[in-house]
């Protein structure tokens, strides 16, 4: 048989790389080769340099490879902290869907740092950003989530934003929100989708029908 025996292998699979300096990794971070950039992201994460965060964010802005984008945001998540979340939040307005998704995903994994941005995001001019904020809320542990959602369905002018909030209320809402849910029928009259959604959530929350 040609399944290789233990003695002949192992070493061949091991590839130890000598660590480089911050400047060397920084150069690799903007290399043409995806493998170099991945190596740089991982290498830089171990150096704890003060320029680390701005360097990673600069790389994220120009990065087009989906795998490297994900590696950067995941590496940022591991480091964590308010500064990381502050730097990531603006990417919610990016036109690059994959990058945006990677950022939403990682913000969901940093609930306590992200919470402080929630009210600002819910007041963003761009309806898509408000929808992404609600998407992020699906993973937040904050006790404020139901309250935020209720505020959205009571005041946001955009129907699709309200419906996204209502969808999450089906999971997190309480019976005392029935009036706000019902209020959507007045705010968006003659919309079959609104009527359907309100009906579904009322049943879910145990509202009087």
């Amino acid at each position, binding site marked *: 048989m040609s*399944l290789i025996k233990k003695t002949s292998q192992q070493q061949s*699979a091991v*590839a130890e790389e000598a660590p480089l300096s911050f400047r060397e990794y920084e150069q690799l971070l903007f290399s043409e080769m995806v493998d170099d950039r991945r190596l740089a992201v991982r290498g830089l994460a171990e150096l704890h340099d003060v320029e680390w965060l701005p360097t990673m964010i600069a790389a994220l802005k120009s990065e087009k490879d989906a*795998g490297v984008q*994900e*590696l950067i945001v995941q590496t940022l998540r*591991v480091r964590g902290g308010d500064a990381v979340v502050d730097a990531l939040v603006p990417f919610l307005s990016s036109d690059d869907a994959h990058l945006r998704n990677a950022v939403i995903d990682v913000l969901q*994994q940093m609930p306590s740092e992200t919470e402080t941005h929630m009210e600002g995001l819910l007041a963003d001019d761009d309806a898509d950003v408000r929808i992404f904020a609600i998407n992020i809320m699906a993973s937040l542990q904050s006790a404020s989530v139901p309250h935020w959602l209720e505020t959205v369905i009571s005041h946001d002018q955009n129907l699709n934003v309200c419906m996204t909030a209502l969808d999450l209320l*089906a999971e997190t809402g309480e019976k005392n929100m029935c009036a706000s849910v019902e209020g959507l029928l007045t705010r968006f009259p003659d919309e079959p989708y609104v009527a359907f959604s309100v009906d579904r959530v009322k049943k879910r929350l145990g509202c009087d029908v």
Partner: protein
Amino acid sequence: MTDIKISDEDYKKFCEFFYRKTGIFFDEAKRYFVDKRLVERVKATGEKDFRSYFVQVRFATDGIELQTLINAMTVNETYFMREDYQFKVLSEFVMDEIVRHKGGDAPVRIWCIPSSTGEEPYSVGISLLEKWPSIERYDVEIFSSDIDTKVLQKARQGLYSARSLMRMSEEQKKTYFKPVGNDYQIIDDLREAVTFSQCNLSNSAETKKFKNIDVVFCRNLLIYFDDASRRTAVQNLYDAMAPGGFIFLGHSESMSRMSSLFKLRKFGSVIIYQKPF
């Protein structure tokens, strides 16, 4: 303890949540099974009813109760040739594609993680010997890793009960095992052909020694990770794999809750994932 009841609306709410998190969807037909498991967990956690339990599952920061629940909702049993349609795809399509692409004499590298007690890496070896004719011409390395050193020790020993061999024919038992009392031990040639090692898949310092892996079997592991560890694990697998390498997940696991980095490939009726070139 009062009787715990799960209302129709609560059942739907749970199923929607569980589907969003795992990709596993329970319909009305699974109601009895799901209810029973849920009631067990409500009681085990000391919550007063389903609603307060659901709040705990959904809002607990550590995600541990969700992982316990996934464990309760899925079957995790290991035996030889489990989900053998995947081994069939490996021998019929995947191996040939890999050697065609690699060219030269470089060995094909296969990594099974988690190793558990070794049934899977040995099954890979046996299926290649039996079903992939080109094994005569190419070298294959099989690595197998687990975080748990106790199961690795058992895997290296290769001693199994008759139950583990329930999917093996008499012929296979004779060829690849030797009887030890009531049990069966895998033959030395196979034992020596698999390299076992300890490795935590969500720690890149431990996974970085794996490079240019052509085939990964990572079945029934990632579904039990929390979201953050799962993302890290996928990045680590991605770096360990050769361009064009393939990854097999367990049948109840879906890449749709993990990553969009891998391409989908369909071989016969089986869908597996491939790292882009």
